[in-house]
């Protein structure tokens, strides 16, 4: 394995980490807000608060980590994605900023303010949509050259593309699916029957649209990017495996084995995410940039890998501590502080 592949694998792992923790967070915010509208807020409120409060900041770091690592290992991505994505990513930043700060204002400041909670819910749905433009653009076909030799985003092509919209829909449904599945598990640990019933229902509701859009995107790829479509087909067995995990997770959900059900949801996404990643090899931005021509110099690559390993030695025990204190800790989940 060469260092380019090692680099992109590490980043892909962090992006996946962000997808999972952010999905739980975004979805929780959405359920928290939507239950205010449907007047079921008192049922889910405590479970969501107990999970979110100690970890919301960590979620944000995953994103920064992916992003800084990307520029570190592949500096050319800064030029391409930076130039093209000014507006969509700025929108994401603004939404993330409002979301993060209003969460803090609502939780630590004036408690229980409805406006903050609604804001937190709405942004939670819009952020995955705006962030997924980066993924859509990386697929190729949405960048055009300007008269002066620069590059820019082709907004008309982007907004009229069914493929682009399918990815947005997938990001939304999977956010709600992952989140509901996790919160079902969390409320089962908390022995909070009302919340458990609700989140179980949400998991069922969001599971099928997720898998349908995912299948739809594979088919649409055939028209959008033939090379990538063939790449996806050659890995069909991985997607089949992912689908099996999906079925298993639903069976476990039915059997009220929520922890394992969530683990299979994560496995389902992990396999599909990695298969998707492998299938686009070697492109970062089709067809402008591959992992080889955008790579940093060798010295910096080895320095980054070294720091990464040292950093993990610090991070893993710390994350384990968070896990032990807040996520796997029955007394905390049941009683709160």
């Amino acid at each position, binding site marked *: 394995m060469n260092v380019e592949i090692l680099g992109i694998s590490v980043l892909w792992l962090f992006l996946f980490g962000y997808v999972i923790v952010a999905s739980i967070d975004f979805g929780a915010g959405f359920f928290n807000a939507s239950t205010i509208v449907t007047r079921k807020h008192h049922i889910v409120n405590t479970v969501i608060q107990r999970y979110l409060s100690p970890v919301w900041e960590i979620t*944000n770091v995953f994103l920064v980590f992916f992003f800084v690592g990307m520029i570190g290992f592949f*500096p050319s991505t800064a030029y391409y994605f930076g130039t093209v994505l000014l507006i969509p990513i700025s929108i994401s930043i603004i939404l993330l900023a409002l979301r*993060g700060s209003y969460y803090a204002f609502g939780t*630590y400041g*004036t408690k229980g303010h409805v406006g903050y909670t609604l804001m937190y819910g709405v942004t939670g749905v819009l952020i995955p949509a705006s962030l997924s433009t980066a993924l859509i653009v990386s697929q190729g076909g949405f960048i055009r050259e300007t008269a002066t030799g620069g590059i820019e985003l082709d907004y008309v092509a982007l907004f009229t593309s069914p493929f682009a919209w399918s990815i947005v829909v997938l990001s939304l449904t999977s956010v709600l699916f992952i989140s509901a599945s996790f919160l079902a598990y969390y409320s089962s640990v908390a022995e909070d029957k009302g919340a458990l019933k609700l989140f179980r229902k949400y998991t069922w509701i969001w599971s099928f649209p997720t898998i349908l859009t995912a299948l739809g995107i594979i088919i649409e790829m055939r028209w959008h990017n033939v090379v990538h479509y063939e790449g996806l087909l050659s890995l069909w067995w991985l997607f089949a495996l992912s689908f099996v995990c999906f079925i298993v997770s639903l069976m476990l959900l039915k059997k009220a084995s929520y922890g394992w059900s969530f683990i299979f949801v994560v496995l389902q996404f992990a396999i599909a995410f990695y298969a998707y990643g492998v299938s686009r090899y070697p492109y970062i931005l089709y067809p402008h940039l591959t992992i080889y021509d955008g790579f940093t110099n060798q010295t910096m690559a080895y*320095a980054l890998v070294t720091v990464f390993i040292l950093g993990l030695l610090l991070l893993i025990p710390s994350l384990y501590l968070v896990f032990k204190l*807040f996520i796997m800790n029955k007394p905390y989940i049941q009683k709160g502080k």
Partner: protein
Amino acid sequence: MESVEFSRYLTMLTLSVHVIFATVGVGIPIFIAIAHWLGLKNNDEHYLLMAKRWARGYVISVAVGVVTGTAIALQLALLWPKFMEFAGQLVALPLFMETFAFFFEAIFLGIYLYTWNRFKNPKHHFLLLIPVIIGSGMSALFITSVNAFMNTPQGFALVDGTLTNIQPLVAMFNPAMPTKVAHVLTSAYMTSAFILASIAAYHLWKGNRHEYHRKALALTMKIAFIFAIATAVVGDLSGKFLAEYQPEKLAAAEWHFETEGEAPLVLYGILTETKEVKYAIKIPYALSFLVHSNFTGEVIGLNEFPEEYHPPYFVHYFFDIMVTLGIWLTMLSMAYCIALWRKWKFIKTKAFRWLLLTSGPLAMVAIQAGWWFTEMGRQPWIMRGYMTVAEGATDSAHVPLMFVAFSVLYFILVVGTGVVLTRMFKNNPVEKELGELEIDQRSVAK
């Protein structure tokens, strides 16, 4: 070249907002730790409550710091894509390490906040603050080293447009790094101390006579004095560094055009169009002395540099503001500490408390002025000697629109933070919390 100008303004806006929260974010954990430690050691409810209340306010500022920090991290690539493509190969290491430090801090801060009363031995809970302090200090160190690299790039060779012989550690430990990091850290601790002192002084000034506020003021002012001295000493070293490595920045700060020995120090004043300094206070020989520690040393003037590489001359005003406020705050905290020790009465007057109450905001103004001086003082370079600001900027035509959007965002964030923090503490004064504690203890005793 409209994009370049707006990219500069937007970066300046984001950083100016971020630095408010970043400074507090780096500095305040130390004060939480000291108060917490004093509380545990002396079994003093006041100090324990102080740690709790400071921590509660701190979370709000950390939240805004995190989101504005995320904004600047992403904006670097959005607004300066060509610069990041180039520099990404040289400074990726400290950038990457910064996120680790940040991660570390985020994890332990979360644990600290949610584990009051969860450890059997309260000292274990206290120990959680150590990684928070280390994490915040380290992230300041790494990110400042990136900024220092932009001022004094090294650790690579540029042969016909290609980078060779890259040495990440040499790039990280560049000549500007030691003084810059030291100045950032000491001034962050100093500013945080003055801000916390301001809060205590405000309550005393309003006529509150509670022991809690007196303890808070005495504690923070003593530490503020120590860090004010440290900041001044490091500031002097930074000046000597500038004279050696970035003489044009120092010369612009001092309106020093001709290279000469026996150079005077110029304070205040205005600059006419013919580059004459008017209405200024000139201290003879002082600049030579500051730079070379002797009165006749030669100081390089701006005229040695081609005009297109001159920094804007108005950086002089930022330099003046920073230095003046620094000296004023050092004297103020010294006066307080001496008076406290000698038991002089004047520090209890309303007027003096008003002065103390302004110290926090003034320290923050000094931080802003200092950053504006150092950043505008390296114009026109984004990477001194290698890339100008115009060469690094984006081509996108949408920057003005984004500038407006972010201005609105920051307005909401800053006002929101102010409102939330004020409400949080106003509705829950110290007396009330201490009263609740006593009731708690009584019910335990029964």
